[in-house]
């Protein structure tokens, strides 16, 4: 009987060892799953994408209105309307509208090329949002100036990167 007591203790320690090892393996597994996911765009990538469009020009705030619901349930299809206060004449019109995001896998959402024949500088579409983030719309006017508007959006169900079932 006396000899049996240390035996059970030994058993106990090996089980503990096993559990510790299993726990460690689970942690390693979790890390691997995290690294498999594609990297998301960062605010730095967003500003780089904006620089690609505007070059060295100064981007002013104003004139642009970005209509997106501030709280989005489903990031797979989010209605978005961008409008710019502009008379849309031959001398003073919007050349193009560019929309950027912060945290989707890619910083671009869309580029829209308009002209004086548009009559009204307004574009609507439906977009995907992979996370709660800031969306920026930039308008390029005929005089070469850039104007922007940004909106913060909270997304409950993310899009873009979910698994195919």
């Amino acid at each position, binding site marked *: 009987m006396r000899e049996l007591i240390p035996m059970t203790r030994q058993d106990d320690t090996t089980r503990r060892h096993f559990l510790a090892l299993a726990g460690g393996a689970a942690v390693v597994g979790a890390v691997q799953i995290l690294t498999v996911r594609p990297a998301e765009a960062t605010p730095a990538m967003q500003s780089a994408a904006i620089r690609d469009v505007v070059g060295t020009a100064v981007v002013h705030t104003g004139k642009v209105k970005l209509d997106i619901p501030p709280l989005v349930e489903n990031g797979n299809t989010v209605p978005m309307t961008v409008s710019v206060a502009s008379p849309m004449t031959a001398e003073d019109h919007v050349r193009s509208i560019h929309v950027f995001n912060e945290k989707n896998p890619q910083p671009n959402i869309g580029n829209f090329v308009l002209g004086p024949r548009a009559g009204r500088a307004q574009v609507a579409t439906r977009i995907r949002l992979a996370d709660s983030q800031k969306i920026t719309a930039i308008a390029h006017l005929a005089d070469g100036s850039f104007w922007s508007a940004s909106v913060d959006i909270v997304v409950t169900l993310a899009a*873009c990167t979910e698994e195919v079932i």
Partner: protein
Amino acid sequence: MAALINVPPRAKRGDIIEIKTLMSHIMETGYRHTADGAVVPRDIITSFSCRYNGTEIFRADLFPAIAANPFISFFTVADASGTFEFEWIGDRGFSATAKAAITVE
């Protein structure tokens, strides 16, 4: 490859009209994985354009961040009777066109 186009059939000269377009397309982002870890290759519409009596009045570059079945609406000034021609171009040789007529009085 079904397109839905909404253009007012008639308008007064100088009216600003809204044009709504929708093209059925999966817009696969290229960032999704199957259950066994393989990447689902990207398949999106990359470019959309609209010509009004032969002149391009609107163009858009689309990215994976545009939702499936891309809906795009924009405006133009109705200045002559004629046709709108729409064109969508995408990955894997995707190409689709549609037309709509307008009478301007």
